[in-house]
């Protein structure tokens, strides 16, 4: 058991605490804003995982898109809809305990299944040296993964246009202006 192993294990524990703890906070905290913040914490944990798993580029993506974009978006929309977010208001619906039970059982079952499985772990040297350069990833995205790459770009376009169409503040007089109602 070398020192690096020890650090890895230590890091793993820390990150796990971040991720799961953050996750728990996300689903339990009474204040939605705090929930969103702890989401960021949890995401950061995940990012750490990626680093630990030698997927540096992915970690960067996580940081930029997830933490950088999505979480912020969420925070904004929370503030947008904060109007009636009276703090201290109950954030759980009445079925939460059933949910908890079911989810826990599912987790147990899954864990059993996961530990039952014998994994086709790759060979030692492969494990030791996962040589994936960023360049390769870029090449892959415009190479074999070009089609999905194009598609996702279109998808993002659609999503953004749609978001604008639905969420854009419309001044109602113009709304009634150009909708000749059928009724």
């Amino acid at each position, binding site marked *: 058991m070398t020192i690096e192993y020890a650090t890895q294990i230590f890091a793993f524990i820390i990150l796990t605490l971040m991720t799961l703890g953050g996750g728990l906070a996300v689903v339990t905290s009474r204040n939605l804003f705090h929930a969103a913040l702890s989401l960021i914490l949890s995401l950061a944990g995940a990012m750490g995982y990626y680093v630990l798993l030698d997927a540096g580029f992915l970690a960067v993506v996580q940081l930029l898109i997830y933490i950088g974009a999505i979480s912020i978006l969420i925070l904004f929309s929370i503030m947008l809809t904060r109007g009636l977010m009276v703090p201290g208001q109950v954030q759980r619906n009445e079925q939460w305990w059933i949910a908890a039970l079911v989810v826990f059982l599912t987790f147990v079952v*899954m864990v059993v*299944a*996961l530990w*039952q*499985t*014998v*994994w*086709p772990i790759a060979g030692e040297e492969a494990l030791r040296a996962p040589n994936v350069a960023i360049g*390769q990833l870029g090449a*892959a995205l415009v*190479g*074999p*993964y*070009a*089609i*999905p790459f194009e*598609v*996702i770009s*279109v*998808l993002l376009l*659609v*999503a953004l*246009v*749609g978001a604008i*169409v*639905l969420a854009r503040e*419309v001044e109602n007089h113009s*709304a009634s*202006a*150009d*909708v*000749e*109602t*059928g*009724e």
Partner: protein
Amino acid sequence: MILAQLLVLLLPDLVLTLTALVVLVLDMIWREGSRSQRFLPWVALIGTVALIAVTVLVWPLGGTGGLPIALATDKDFGGDQVPMMVLDPLALFFKLFTALVLILMLLASGDYVRARIRFRGEFYAFILFGGLAMMLSAAATNLLMIYLSLEFLSITSYLLTGYLREDERSTEGAVKYFVYGATASAVMLYGFSLLYGATGTLDLASIAAVLTGGAVPVHWLVYPALIMMLVGLGFKIALVPFHQWAPDAYEGAPTPVTAFLSVGPKAAGFAVLTRLLLTALPNFRLDWIAVLAGVAIVTMTLGNLVALWQSNVKRLLAYSSIAQAGYMLIGLVALAPEAQSWMTGLNGLLLYLFAYLFTNLGAFAVVIAVENHTGSAQLDAFAGLMRRNPFLAVTMFLFLLSLIGIPPTAGFVGKLFVFGAAIQRQMIMLAVVGIVNSVISVYYYYAIMRQMFFSEAADPLPFDEGPGLRVAVGVAAVMVLMMALYAEPFIRLASESVNLLAASF
């Protein structure tokens, strides 16, 4: 594979994408409410017709055997450079299918959109993008591509559902649809990840190869993965118990969108499900046939039973479409590649989908027409339709008969092949349940017939449904009859679209 070839193979998808983008751009050029705006649907229509043309054009390429669509084939990246998509009969079938859906929808939605919808350009564009997503998902052979295209389809669907911003039902339906869909797809994604872990690849064929190779005992994982994928796809198809979003979303969505939702995602879901199960998990057949058989039974039954109590036609048709999905599933459950009688459940599934396409879209077109003129989709809005607009009443009657499965209509052919497959596989139970259900379904379809023919309208004034709707309904009706009276080409089409899969099975 050189780029030119690739583009040729992707031609249909490109055409559709292009059309959608053009519509978006034109919408920006023609400012809101200008006269030229009304040409948007025609532009979209032209694009769709073009889609059909190019589909027919590329048919010879993929019509006989699968033709992989991939940019590079070199092995630099650890040998996972397998294609994302394929141009095979099934994919072509669904390209055609999509084109037809789009055409009928565009024809049917004109007046409705003009009357109720803002941001029409985006609306049409989204519908076209939805179609694109359908085509992609039907052609995808890679878990990544599948997930991507299904999400694409879902997101467009969410947006379209919530498109009536001023209508609380629409927005509410959208929220429910979104929450439900996002969760379901997350679950499915988790399932994908497990499958990836179990096999180390995302390509369906390779997955099958690994699993059949049986190098490693990973069954502990495949089954959970199967279930979680089923959640995602079941959500798309609206199979019980993953159906509950459907009635709310259908009722809330703008009626043309409802029509689209009741056909498009279902078809895509079935396409993916079929491809996934047959290509990736053939030797887990026993597992998924057992599960799906159960699902089929509860789907048919629950859909029909609950439909008995609906008084809103859109909601009623939502439940009916749930039940219909149950019938279709029988075809998948009872698939028999070795069948002598042309009744391999798979072609039954496709035939049924095809019949369902015309029938359901036709029915919804009528609903749209009625809603345009009465402003309501409640049952009593149909009162005395026979007097007010015989054309709509008669065609609607035809569609309802087809939904029940009474000859000479398309629905009959679908049921014939599906139940035939079941009987062939000695799954009498399944067939009987299906039969009993189609009898139950009469009760609520009769509710509509009764209103149309037996009750008197509040205002008996006749009304005109408008050219677009007339064409849409007419085409649908003709096809519904055609499929029964001249079934041969349809049967061949369906059979040839699946024989490749069946062979690989």
